[in-house]
């Protein structure tokens, strides 16, 4: 069994394989942020930070921190050579305008038609949507990176029960159990983590899960 950190790194590593050479990518806070650490060698992937730059680089050493350069989670980061700063209007023009190739986000629930709930639990947790609704409506490809269940309760469902962040927006889901594509016929498992049986994965999924004819092992 993987511990939480190993599980998150395993998911992030697999998501990173989806990031194409030359792509502009926006990563959500938390698990999705880890993806940047695993971009395959030789691929030139540009990361956007929606608070206003392209060329998001790694966390600086303590003595190299510039308080004016933080990521969308407010944490100190760096900007790489060839990067650019801009304001929020331009940043969301990039996002809504379809100029972001891939966005990687977390979720509370994803439905088999691609609906996603990720920004609030009424009466309990109401952080707000930040830039998530714009990213979901504008990015060319939406990947959800998350644990397959919430302490055993399925997060992949026939229909979301929580308020939606966007309708029919999700293209792919990467969890510790496998890689799932959201298609016209619902969830299709295209890769399986061999540490789990197909029955286990189906049992952890709250909707029909079609097994792809070309099912692969998740690396």
């Amino acid at each position, binding site marked *: 069994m993987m511990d939480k950190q190993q599980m998150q790194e395993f998911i992030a590593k697999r998501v990173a394989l989806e990031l194409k050479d030359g792509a502009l990518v926006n990563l959500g806070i938390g698990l999705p942020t880890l993806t940047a650490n695993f971009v395959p060698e030789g691929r030139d992937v540009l990361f956007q930070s929606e608070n206003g730059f392209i060329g998001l680089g790694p966390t600086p050493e303590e003595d190299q921190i510039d308080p*004016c350069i*933080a990521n969308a989670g407010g944490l100190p980061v760096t900007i790489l050579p060839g990067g650019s700063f801009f304001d929020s*209007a331009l940043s*969301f023009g990039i996002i809504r305008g379809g100029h972001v190739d891939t966005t990687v986000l977390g979720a509370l629930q994803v439905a088999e038609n691609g609906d996603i709930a990720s920004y609030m639990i009424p009466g309990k947790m*109401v952080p707000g949507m930040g830039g998530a609704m714009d990213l979901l409506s504008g990015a060319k490809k939406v990947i959800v990176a998350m644990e397959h269940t919430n302490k055993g309760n399925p997060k992949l469902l026939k229909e979301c029960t929580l308020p*939606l*962040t966007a*309708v029919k927006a999700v293209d792919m889901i990467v969890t510790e159990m496998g890689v799932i594509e959201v298609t016209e016929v619902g969830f299709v498992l295209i890769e399986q983590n061999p540490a789990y049986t197909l029955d286990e994965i189906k049992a952890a999924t709250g909707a029909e899960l079609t097994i792809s004819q070309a099912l692969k092992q998740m690396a």
Partner: protein
Amino acid sequence: MNKLISLEDAVNLVRDGDTIMIGGFLSVGTPDRLIDALIAKGTKNLTLICNDTGFIDRGVGKMVVAKMFKKILTSHIGTNKETGRQMLEGEIEVVLIPQGTLIEQIRAGGFGLGGVLTKTGLGTEVEKGKQIVDIDGEKHLLEKPLRANVALLFAEKADVRGNLTFHGATRNFNTHMGAAADISIVEVNEVVKIGEMCPDEVVVPGVFVTHIVDGGAL
């Protein structure tokens, strides 16, 4: 024309009950000295328009803790527990707005537009009570412009005419809020004379700035 004013004169331009816009993103690019002076003065019943509500001990979040707002329009309150508490206990009204929509509403307010049409928020709670407009067969939400009495902004450098330059990721909402407010006060780290700023480097022209507070001289 010299737009420089003192910190004291600046905060006196904000009145109880005003709608104010404050620049910054999770306290990066926030006019901290203006915020601290407003808290010290104790201005009340304000409506805030801001990307987020910062942290309890940093940026605009300190104003939330000081209970200066009756209403907040923002995209994110998750980093400030006090905002959530005041909202859930009915002390303040919070309107959550997608970030890209919020900046466009502000831009529309400053640039003479009657609103913006966006697909962001379709099919979600954001859609409630809003007009849906069909453009060539595709549904869009009509989002109306936002304006404020006063904008409190931050920039790295100003000349005395109010031309602004920025450093790092501090531009965020600071570049457009000035246009959407009757009074726009910019706190800067440095003020230079006319001619000392190259027109090529100006990000925001001084036309959107009514007052400058020289943070570097404080």
